[in-house]
């Protein structure tokens, strides 16, 4: 079986630089898990520890039932696709793909069959006799995939495989990889810094920051229920808007006061009355409205910039020192400098503690993936 379990894994470099701390995760067999986060968050390091390319400072990693801490990469039954593809430049595509089978002493006819099958699957058959130097970026990428595929490993590790491709290729390849996963029914662990990739490709996403796991959940859950301000801000384009504010109770109702206005929030927040908070609202959960209102509307904003995105627009607005973005359908009459009012969908507001940055709604109800 090809589940992966990481128990309290740490990685420390000399000089006490902790790249990864207390990483706990259970990846189920056949799952597509994505590690995502800003550079330096430890996602590649963790992947490489699973692969056996980095030593584990403390903790345990199991592939299936097997403890693999000191098992050589080549005995772990894994395959890896590198960001730079790492193709053997002096070997043909065929030999590149055949290499690992050769290392495992697979008989020649079997090698030939499997290489050709995989090449067929990836559309590489006509390239088998070429050397990597004569291939384009996308073709190299597919060869790298093929090289990993040919081994039918129990675990697939991919380290930012699409980073070196241009945008169009990237979106094509994304679809290819998803299809591949469905077809192969193998465990995929994928590392990326691109949150779009993370959201569209994974069964579950592991968001990391500075070596620590921030949240592990399905894309939808992360989007709807981000555990802290970092996660909320990392996922979603354009980025969620954040406003400093305070929780107030009045006449039995709860409000979040921010942006010169107040927003009705659920009564469950009453316990946090008086707390300084950060109010988060996604641009797509705000809309331009005509007039001001006492509640749930930011009034007196000024349009700074309108970005045209086809049928949608991003309206960048400001209120004094505060800046925010509203996602809306295209409308006419929006000019820079003109006044604007924005209604907020209060059912989609997130309240984060100003200090801990934790999502207050999730501190009581333990949101577990």
């Amino acid at each position, binding site marked *: 079986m090809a589940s992966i379990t990481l128990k309290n894994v740490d990685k420390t470099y000399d000089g006490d630089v902790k790249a990864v701390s207390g990483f706990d995760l259970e990846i189920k067999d056949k799952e597509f898990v994505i590690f995502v986060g800003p550079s330096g968050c430890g996602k590649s390091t963790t992947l490489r520890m699973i*692969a*056996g*390319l980095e030593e584990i400072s403390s903790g345990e990693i199991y592939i299936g039932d097997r403890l693999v801490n000191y098992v*050589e*990469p*080549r005995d772990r039954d*894994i*395959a*890896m696709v*590198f*960001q*730079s593809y*790492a*193709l*053997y*430049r*002096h070997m043909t595509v065929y030999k590149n793909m055949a*290499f*690992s089978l050769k*290392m*495992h002493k697979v008989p020649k006819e079997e090698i030939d069959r499997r290489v050709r099958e995989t090449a067929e699957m990836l559309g590489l058959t006509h390239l088998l006799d070429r*050397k990597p*130097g004569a291939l384009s970026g996308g073709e190299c990428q597919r060869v790298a995939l093929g*090289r990993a595929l040919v*081994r039918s490993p129990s675990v697939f590790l991919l380290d930012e495989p699409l980073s070196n491709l241009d945008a169009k290729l990237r979106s094509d390849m994304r679809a290819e990889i998803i299809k591949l996963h469905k077809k192969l029914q193998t465990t995929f662990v994928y590392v990326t810094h691109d949150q779009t990739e993370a959201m569209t490709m994974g069964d579950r996403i592991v968001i990391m920051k500075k070596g620590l796991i921030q949240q592990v959940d399905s894309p939808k859950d992360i989007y709807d229920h981000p555990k802290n301000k970092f996660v909320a801000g990392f996922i979603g384009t354009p980025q969620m808007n954040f406003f400093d504010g305070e929780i107030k109770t009045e006449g039995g109702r709860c409000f979040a006061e921010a942006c010169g206005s107040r927003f009705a929030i659920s009564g469950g927040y009453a316990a946090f009355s008086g707390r300084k908070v950060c109010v988060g609202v996604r641009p797509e959960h705000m809309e331009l409205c005509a007039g001001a209102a006492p509640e749930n509307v930011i009034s007196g904003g000024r349009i700074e910039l309108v970005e045209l995105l086809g049928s949608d627009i991003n309206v960048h607005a400001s209120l004094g020192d505060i800046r925010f973005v509203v996602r809306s359908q295209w409308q006419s009459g929006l000019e820079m400098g003109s006044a604007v009012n924005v209604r907020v969908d209060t059912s989609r507001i997130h309240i984060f503690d100003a200090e801990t940055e934790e999502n207050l709604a999730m501190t009581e109800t333990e949101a577990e993936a």
Partner: protein
Amino acid sequence: MTRKQPGPEQLRRRKDRLNSLIYLSPSLIGVMVFFLVPFMVVIYYSVIDNPVNKDFVLIDNFIKVIKNSAFKQAAANTAKFSLVAVPGAVVLALLLAMLLENKIPGKSRFRTFFLSPMMVPVASVVLIWQVIFHYNGALNGLLSVFGVDPIDWMKTDYSQIMIVILFWWKNLGYNMILFMAALANIPKTLVEAASVDGASSFSRFWHIKIRYLSPTILFVTILSLINSFKVFREVYLLTGDYPYETLYMLQHFMNNKFSSFDYQMLSAAAIIMAVVIVAIIGALFYAENRFGKDVEQ
């Protein structure tokens, strides 16, 4: 009729050409005077029969040299020596470099130690070599502990083993540095990919690393080849003007011809050597080109 004035670009180019020559001239003049022009004279001398008659005899001198028994001896010795010493210098240095690749304590200290023979003048260390390799010396002493009879290192065929060891002692450090740099330049992800693909340590080396090492292997081979001719120094300082026959090297041959003012032989021999060396190096280059083509960086 006004003459066309040269534009600023042309002026610049003219100035460049002038500067280029000026900066090169000291070196170029020296090289021409001391090497290139006299080499033409050498070629001239090699094709005439003597400085008095100046008759052209073309390849006669060359044939005379090749047939000369002393030359044959020297050439054979040199060839035998190089065939063992040079590949050894390459392979052993590579092994040493790979040894130091690992995480052993005091790595840089070891590097200094391995490089140290380079800084010791041959003249200084020859004394200890005599102590070690003399018939009554330390090495035979050590061998006798294992029940091996004493060997005359200097006056038998074993002398060739001795100078190979001396050669390696002096040159391995330098070659090792070159290999260490080359090993460090192999793209890490490639080796990792091979690791994941299932290659053992040996396979990783044999299938991947060697390709990236081939330019350095070429360079170290050529360098060691050139240095192998300098082993004359050790031989001369150890054995003087009249070494044992297996230690008789080309330089000995040349020295003799110098003292007898036989310019014809000298010139012919020098040219033969030059041609052979250029041919060997050319062949090596060609071989490396075929082998290391794809992984050019």
